[in-house]
């Protein structure tokens, strides 16, 4: 029996979908050989009930003013303390912004290993965890294991694993005394949060994605791509260079190994070169179509259909055809 912790990120009382994905995959992988505990932090409005019913065996709740908003030092300290006390065999966190920052600090404090941004999990013949994650920006997949230290830690990419319908196990709720945080002086203080309102469906939840890469060429063509997306009721996605070059203000809709992992029914790319980093994030989509002037573009290797043409012209023609 493995004692497994899953860190459940929550905001405003809503548990992140990544938690359910990790939980589903854990149960799929270990079956009844795992005792699964959800770990949740917060201050007021903590979704204890949802976690109790989620299919986990146990829920650890840490409530403290210091945990009201995410802040790296307090979150790291809290998780380190809990793991040190409870000594789980395996700890999963989401490879979100929070998880990606907190998990390495925790692993360091515990002197244990951590596999980053995993997209596949497996067990070897001894029941030990093999973690598979993109390497070289997704050009290759690396297999990692943590043989000599405990807990085994992995951060898991959201959007990769399926969320299953799990029966409630009416989990035991453990409220952990978090007063040790009150006097902890980490040196990082939360000041405020600016919420970015999403104007469309989050890209990772969309059935249809229109994706723009740098090869789209200019703002005009980008506007056309957005118009197409509205006709198709699709969400817009972008490649990393579009964000780095300042075409896009934030990373919410960035697809790739360092952004969102997406699996829409239809992916339609314009001017996407097909860097390994991007392909890693969209290769499991249903139907993949790419438009690129470069007939050798790497994106075509991961496409069902290719169109070798200028994105702007095809967008014009396509919008015309669809508006008929």
């Amino acid at each position, binding site marked *: 029996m493995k004692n497994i912790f899953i860190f459940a990120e929550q905001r405003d009382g809503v548990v992140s979908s990544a938690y359910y994905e990790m939980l589903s995959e854990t149960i799929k992988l270990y079956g009844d050989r795992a005792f699964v505990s959800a770990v949740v932090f917060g201050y007021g409005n903590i979704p204890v009930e949802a976690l109790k019913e989620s299919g986990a065996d146990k829920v650890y709740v840490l409530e403290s003013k210091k945990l009201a908003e995410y802040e790296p*030092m307090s979150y790291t300290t809290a998780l380190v303390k809990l793991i040190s006390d409870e000594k789980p065999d395996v700890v999963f966190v989401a490879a979100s912004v929070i998880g990606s920052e907190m998990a390495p600090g925790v692993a360091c404090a515990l002197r244990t290993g951590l596999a980053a941004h995993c997209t596949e999990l497996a067990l070897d013949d001894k029941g030990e965890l093999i973690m598979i994650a993109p390497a070289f920006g997704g050009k290759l*997949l690396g297999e990692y294991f943590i043989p000599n230290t405990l807990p085994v830690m992995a951060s898991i990419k959201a959007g990769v694993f399926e969320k299953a319908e799990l029966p409630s196990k009416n989990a035991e709720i453990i409220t952990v005394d978090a007063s040790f945080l009150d006097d902890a002086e980490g040196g990082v203080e939360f000041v405020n949060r600016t919420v970015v309102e999403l104007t469309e469906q989050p890209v990772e939840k969309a059935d249809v994605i229109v994706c723009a890469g740098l090869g789209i060429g200019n703002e005009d063509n980008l506007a056309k791509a957005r118009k197409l997306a509205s006709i198709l*009721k699709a969400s817009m996605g972008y490649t990393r260079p579009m964000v780095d070059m300042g075409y896009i203000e934030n990373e919410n809709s960035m697809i790739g190994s360092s952004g969102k992992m997406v699996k829409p029914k239809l992916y339609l790319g314009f001017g996407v070169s097909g860097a390994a980093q991007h392909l890693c994030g969209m290769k499991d989509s249903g139907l993949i179509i790419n438009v690129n002037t470069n007939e050798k573009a790497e994106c075509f290797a991961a496409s069902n259909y290719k169109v070798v043409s200028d994105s702007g012209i095809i967008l014009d023609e396509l919008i015309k055809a669809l508006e008929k």
Partner: protein
Amino acid sequence: MKIAVCLKVAPNPDQYNLIKLDPETKTLIREGIDSVISSTDLHAIELALQLKAKFGGTISLISMGPPSNAKQLLEGLSYGCDEAFLLSDRKLGGADALATSYTLYKGIEKNGGYDLVLLGNASDDGSTAHVPSQLGQWLGLPHVTDVLAFEMDTPDCASVKKELDNGVNEYKVKLPAVIGVTKRLNKVRHPSVMGIFQAKNKPLTVLSAADLDGLDEKCIGLAGSPTQAAGYRDVAFGRDCVEIEGKDAEKAAQLAKILSSYIKA
């Protein structure tokens, strides 16, 4: 202000498509691929230069790797940094993020500590983004990663922003601290000609494991690496790419037909 910038030397990401897997041994073939300063680390250098211009002080570059990394450190110096340390020893080889961050910590400690330790949030090749937080933990300093905005009015406290899934959080960080930066933080300058010609006259010190005081050999190299790579495999796409041909309008018409079944009412 005493600033350290940790640099990683990594294969040039523009050449990842040249990386191949030996079909027999499943080992990496990196032939013909250049080594470069991992691109996000350059943004850490840029921030360091801006802070040096504002508050004065020195910038030290610290890197772990083979002796050949001296070339990239020289390049780092050409941006206007003051000195470089290369932590180079066979014993350090095979390090995961934990052993790497431990070694960098020892290198930083050797030089008497810093007001600010800056580094790219993630390297181009490994992209684990583990080293910044872990370095912060080893040093026992506040650490914030994924930083996209950094402001500092007084040399004892910085205001940083990082993007979370649905917004941007702002934090105050007390110095000394460790900051992992993103590419969005700034635009990296080009080194100047003068910087290039002066670089070779700046101190570049190679430190072996023996030079690092109080180094715990159980924490370095392969032995100090709890996370082990079992091997690599190719990514399978499994798609037969069919070209849609014809004039642009004809291509669009065919596309529209394919798309029609996906359009929601």
